[in-house]
């Protein structure tokens, strides 16, 4: 007999669900996975959007359902909450490291009022400039490194 899947199984499985727009990050890395609860064999997952109009939310919801069914949960509920509002401060250190490796400058802490310069994820130079306040997805802005001349995305702080 196969034993019923546990909370730990659910959490492990959710670590394989990635953000389709920043595929290097899992939903846990990104900080949008707010809660996982298992009760009487049913699993309830609570997620929060990064931006109000984030078009990836429906896709992520579908992936969560699919993944958890795949590890044996028959009853899967995905709840979306808006409050408290997501902040880039919820991104894990692991998530920030993966972003930098992927070539995206990670968000700076929003709690620090003194703004550090944005470092180029390619060469590490702090001599960078903003090209566009808006980028390829709602969560990013476009930058350019003045040292190595490479363009790069910056995950903007909110």
């Amino acid at each position: 007999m196969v034993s019923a899947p546990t909370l730990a199984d659910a959490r492990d499985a959710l670590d394989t669900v990635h953000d389709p727009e920043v595929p290097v990050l899992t939903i846990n890395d990104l900080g949008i996975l707010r809660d996982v609860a298992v009760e009487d064999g049913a699993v309830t997952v609570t997620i929060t959007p990064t931006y109000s109009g984030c078009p990836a939310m429906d896709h992520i919801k579908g992936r969560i359902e699919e993944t958890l069914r795949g590890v044996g949960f028959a009853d899967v509920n995905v709840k979306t909450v808006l409050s408290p509002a997501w902040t880039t401060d919820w991104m894990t250190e692991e998530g920030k490291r993966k972003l930098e490796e992927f070539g995206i400058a990670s968000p700076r802490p929003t709690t620090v009022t003194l703004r550090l310069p944005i470092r180029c994820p390619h060469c590490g130079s702090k001599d960078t400039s903003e090209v566009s306040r808006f980028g390829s997805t709602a969560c990013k802005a476009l930058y350019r490194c003045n040292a190595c001349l490479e363009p790069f995305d910056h995950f903007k702080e909110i």
Partner: protein
Amino acid sequence: MSDPLLTYLLRLGDDSLILAQRLGELVSHQPDLEEDIAVANLALDLIGQARALYAYAGEVEGRGRTEDDLAFLRDEREFFNAVLCEQPNGDFGQTMARQLLFDAYRLPLMDALTASADETISGVAGKAVKECRYHLQHSITWVVRLGDGTEESHRRMQAGLDAMWRFTDELFTGDEVEATLAASGIAVDPSSLRDPWEATIKEVLARATLERPVDPRQRGGGRQGMHSEHLGHILPEMQFLQRAYPGQSW
């Protein structure tokens, strides 16, 4: 009078959706690629805000209408956006003037609504306020750059501002809907947003070397469903698919 909460949610949501539709018209028509991306992002945030507000409006109404029903199956008189939001894009100066006047109003509004006694409204506002702050920084950047730019950009920025100014009083004019809801801490009295708005506009216009327009021909009515001619042209395009193929989805 219908449920004031329902009307209030539609007023907030319709501002977002109609302005988003206007901004959407500009995608691929902006002066540069970065601005194409910017308007698409602004519109996306506003559509996201509208969706959350409409979904809640549907719940409050209790007749089973979804966010899509509210966006695509209402007619002109049933939309309650401020007439500013439906004004044509005009040139880039006019687009940015409209955006500045709206963002400078929407930011203090959402900021105040984060303290709303209604949990759903405060939740939507908590997300929206961060987006609005970013939008306002963007519109300020452009208004200052164009106003304090060349002779031609200054002239056009001022003309855009002059053309949009007559739709601003409506933003700060409430009626019994806001009064009823403000009394129970759910809504914000729009007149209380005038001071923060004036302060932002004054500072930006000074930096942009632009004149504050004076226009006594103020035009409102949108909050009561009495629109300018423009909304009637926006809706057929926005609603075409659901009108032609009711219930279609993908």
